């Protein structure tokens, strides 16, 4: 029998799929729903210190192979989010995605919710964040390292750093994050940003004009990021970007990801995507005679 279980930084997951940050996940209800629907773990929507309305609509628009979005990290702030985290049914591990403008904000938030989740994911990679958050940090290896170092000093649970592909050299940032003490890396946040302009009016459709590109269109880039970073760091990698079926998951595992996150394709496939992917993985591994997910990780190297 094929075993889909994996262990990530000491956290046991029943399968290698997670709900990606910011796809649903603003409430305990939707996180629990993803867990019930087959996700091996769930990542919350990124939250910060204060409630944030995000950008005005349109915040999303479809493009070939995915969407561009500038939701703008809307969230009710850590104090409200804490109430949600308390209602998690704990059926699967939960990872809190947090953002801030500097190491103090990050530490502040994380210290308030550390006891409610299994790990932290530092979002230093949102391509459309305001006020110096998001990729403004993740594009600078030193800023990134500072935040990781400070957060690591303050928390006991694993700290995962989510990186942006929108840099000249993602391997450099990954190494800085590892050296600063990151327990794992999530690769990649949405790309670009990108823009879509309405033909009739000439107006950029997103209110923020630009937004992160996600979905199947970015998969080749995400795979390459995982592949390259795998060769240069020793901490586990969580792959994300464009996964729509079990074959996409295999590509990420082959490239070196220990597990994966799924976001945009929930638009195409609904919440059943987790179960469908896990069934596909099981069938494939059975056919191929793989006993466990770990046997697959990194075989493209």
């Amino acid at each position, binding site marked *: 029998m094929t075993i889909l279980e994996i262990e990530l930084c000491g956290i046991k997951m029943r399968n290698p799929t997670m709900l990606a940050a910011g796809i649903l996940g603003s409430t305990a*209800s939707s996180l629990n729903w993803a867990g019930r629907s087959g996700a091996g773990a769930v990542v919350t929507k990124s939250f910060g210190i204060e409630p944030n309305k995000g950008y005005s609509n*349109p915040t999303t628009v479809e493009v070939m192979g995915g969407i561009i979005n500038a939701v703008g990290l809307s969230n009710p702030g850590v104090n409200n989010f804490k109430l949600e985290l308390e209602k998690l049914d704990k059926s699967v591990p939960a990872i809190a995605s947090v953002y801030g403008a500097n190491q103090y904000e990050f530490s502040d938030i994380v210290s308030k919710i550390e006891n409610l989740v299994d790990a932290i994911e530092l979002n230093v990679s949102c391509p459309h964040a305001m006020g110096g958050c998001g990729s403004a940090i993740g594009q600078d290896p030193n800023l990134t390292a500072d935040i990781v170092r400070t957060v690591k000093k303050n928390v006991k649970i694993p700290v995962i750093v989510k990186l942006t592909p929108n840099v000249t050299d993602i391997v450099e940032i990954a190494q800085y994050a590892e050296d600063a003490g990151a327990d794992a890396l999530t690769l990649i946040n949405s790309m670009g940003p990108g823009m879509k302009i309405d033909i009739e009016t000439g107006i950029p459709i997103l209110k923020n004009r630009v937004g992160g590109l996600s979905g199947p269109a970015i998969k080749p880039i995400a795979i390459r990021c995982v592949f390259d970073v795998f060769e240069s760091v020793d901490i586990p990698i969580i792959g994300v970007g464009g996964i729509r079926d079990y074959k996409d998951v295999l590509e990420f595992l082959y490239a070196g990801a220990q597990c994966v996150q799924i976001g945009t394709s929930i638009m195409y496939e609904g919440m059943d995507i987790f179960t469908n992917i896990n069934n596909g993985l099981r069938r494939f591994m059975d056919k191929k005679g793989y006993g466990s997910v770990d046997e697959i990780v990194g075989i493209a190297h």
Partner: protein
Amino acid sequence: MNIPRIVKIKQIINESPTVKTFIFDWDVKDEIPGQFMMVWNFNNEKPMSISYIDPVKNEIGISIRNIGKFTKQIHNLCEGDKLGLRGPYGRGFHIAGSKILVVGGGIGMAPIIAFSDKASGMGIEVHIISAATTHNELLFNDRIEKSDAKLLTCTDDGTSGFCGFGTDLAEKTLSEIDYDMVICCGPEVMMKKLFDIVEKFKIPAQFSMERYMKCGMGLCGQCCVDNVGWRICVEGPVFWTDELRMINEFGQYRRDSSGVKHNIP
């Protein structure tokens, strides 16, 4: 594809002092009453129920109450002006049974009139309770009269029809007439009351819910409801009573654009 399609406003109908209907040419495929469109005025984009579907003339319409910045901007538009529409989104009303009571409150009449037109056009006996604050805020009376549906009006101030809440009239009607099903859209307090009433009468019912929406395509999570987590924009906006029982925030609270909870008065 979840991309706004630019359409010209073909016709504007003044439904009441606060409500206008906007008609567009639209390639009608399987638009269903209860579904909604994301409406872009090149400045903001918000959900609006489809209030009118004509698969022969290939037109759809939306009806908008002027209650804030966005809706005011749209009310200021003229025939020939443009809007961006994407959709239809969500799960609309199921049509079943041969005698249906539909209850609409205020702008909640928008999906209700689309449903009633379609159901009565199919030969189903449709009784409509149309509730408003006062007589000139009653919506779509003309359209209802032109259809085979039977209209029961209801105003808070008694200026037309039954004086009092739509839910009171509904309770009265339900105790007098046997219906196969109830359909409802209106303010959530009203829907919650009607929910309790249909539970009492053990009649199958569908309710159309509203929550703050951003993407409309099931990704952002802004419209998810407790405790099931469902997205109003995909799994809803229409729910059966059975489903509503699992949405325990129904009638209790709703989240705003940053996700902060607010009690429903």
